[in-house]
C-alpha cells in the first residue's frame, strides 16, 4: 500500500494530537503519543490493506498506547469529575457563545477518561458514533450513553454563575438520553 508519509501526517496529525492532549492532559505526553502512533504505523500499519482505515487505525493505536502507559504510570492521578464532589472552573461563562478554548477544553479535561475519550472524538468530528465505538473498543450503546452523560457533566461545569445555587445536584438534570 502506497501512502505518502507527508500526506498521512498532514491529514491526521492535528486531530490526533488534540485527542492525545485530552487524554494525557499535557503537551509533552500528547506529542509523544502522536509520534508513537505514526511510528507504529511505519512499523506495522503499512500492512493495512484498506487505506480508508488508516485514520481509525492511528486513533485506535494511540488510544491503546495511552491505556497501556496509564496502567504503568503514576504521574497522572485519576481525578474524575463527579457531580457534587468537584468545584466547577473559576471562570463562569454566561452562555455557550462566551466559552473560550481554555475553559471548554479545561472542563473536558476534568472529566473521567471514560467520558473524556468519546467526547473528544465526538467534538473533533473526525468519527461517527459507530466509528468512535470501533476506535475505543466499546459497544455503540455505551458510546452514546457516555456522550449523553458526559455532556451533562460538561454543562454542569460550564453552567453560568448566575442562577446557580450553592448546592450542586448529585444527579444531572434529565435532559439527555438514558443508559439503555
Amino acid at each position, binding site marked *: *500500500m*502506497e501512502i505518502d*508519509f*507527508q500526506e498521512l*501526517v*498532514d491529514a491526521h*496529525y*492535528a*486531530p490526533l*494530537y*488534540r485527542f492525545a*492532549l*485530552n487524554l494525557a492532559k499535557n*503537551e509533552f505526553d500528547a*506529542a*509523544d503519543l*502522536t*509520534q*508513537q502512533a*505514526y*511510528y507504529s504505523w*511505519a*512499523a506495522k500499519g503499512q500492512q493495512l490493506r484498506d487505506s480508508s482505515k488508516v485514520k481509525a487505525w492511528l486513533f485506535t493505536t494511540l488510544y491503546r498506547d495511552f491505556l497501556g502507559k496509564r496502567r504503568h504510570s503514576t504521574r497522572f492521578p485519576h481525578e474524575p469529575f463527579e457531580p457534587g464532589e468537584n468545584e466547577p472552573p473559576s471562570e463562569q461563562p454566561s452562555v*455557550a*457563545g462566551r*466559552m*473560550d*478554548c481554555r475553559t*471548554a*477544553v479545561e472542563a*473536558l479535561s476534568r472529566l473521567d477518561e471514560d467520558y473524556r475519550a468519546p467526547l*473528544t472524538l*465526538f*467534538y*473533533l*468530528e473526525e468519527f*461517527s*458514533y*459507530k466509528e468512535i465505538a470501533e476506535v475505543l473498543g466499546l459497544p455503540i450503546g455505551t*458510546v*452514546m*450513553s457516555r*456522550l*449523553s452523560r458526559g*455532556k451533562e457533566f*460538561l*454543562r454542569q461545569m460550564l453552567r453560568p454563575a448566575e442562577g446557580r445555587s450553592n448546592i450542586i445536584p448529585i444527579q444531572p438534570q434529565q*435532559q*439527555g*438520553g*438514558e443508559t*439503555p
Partner: protein
Amino acid sequence: MNQSEAKFILGAYRPSGRDAGDPQMTAALELTRTDADLDAWFQSELTFDSTLAREVQSTPVPPTLRADLLAGLRLSTPAAETESPRSRGWFRSPWLALAASVVLLAAIAGYWLDLVNRKSAPTASNQTTSDHLEGWQTGAIEMLASLGDGRTRFDKASPDVAALKSWLQDHNAPTPVSLPGPIRNLSSLGCKTLTWHGRPVSIICFDLGNDKAVHLVVIDHRGLPDAPPENSPRYESRGAWITASWSEGDRSMMLLTKGDPRDLEKLLL
C-alpha cells in the same frame, strides 16, 4: 421511536451535520419535525455542541510537531524497505525479472568499469564492514535509532541549518567547520546532541527528499587518539548504515545515510 430514544440518538449527532445520512439519525431527526419540545432541545444541543466542537478543534498544536513527525518517520523507514506495489507486482513475472536482472547486471558492470577508471580513492560502494567506527560514531548511530523509533526527539527542529548551528553553538555543542558543497543546498530537519565520555557530539539531520535523510555527526577530536583522515573520507558500514568519516581542523565528522552508497558519494563530491 419516542422522545427519550430520539434524544439518546441525537446526542451523538455531530454538529457539522455529517451524520444526517445515518438511518438512526434520520429517524430521530424526522421526529423533531413533529415534536416541538424535542426540536427545541435539539437546537439547544446543537448550539452547545457547535461551541465545544469549535473550541476543541482550535486547540493549538505545537508548531514543531509536524516537522518532528516527518523527520522521525524518515529516520525510521530506510529506503530499502519502501517498495511500491507496482514493483512487487513487476517481480512476480519471472521473464520480466530475468530481463530486469540482465539490465541490472549490465548497469552494475558499467558502473564498476567507470569506478576502475577513476582515481584510486575509496568509495562508499567498495567499503567494508566496519571495525573502525569509534565510540562517538556508534553512539550517534544509536541516537539516530532512538530518534527513528520515537524514543527521543530533536533538541531543535528547523529547516534552516544556520538556526541549528546557532542553537548548537549556544549549547556548547560542536558545529562543522564547513559543510560539503551539495549538503549546503539541502533543507535541514533538526539537530540532536549527545555526550560521549564527557565530550559533546552534535548530529544535524538533512532532508534528501523521497523520504530519505542524511545525517552529519560532529565532534571536537582534540585529544582523541584515532581521528578519521583529513585528506579523503573513510567509508564504512554498520548494519544498514553507510558512513563516511573525515577530519577538518579540530573537528571530526561523519556523514551517514541508509540505503544507497551512491547517495553518500554524491554529497561528498
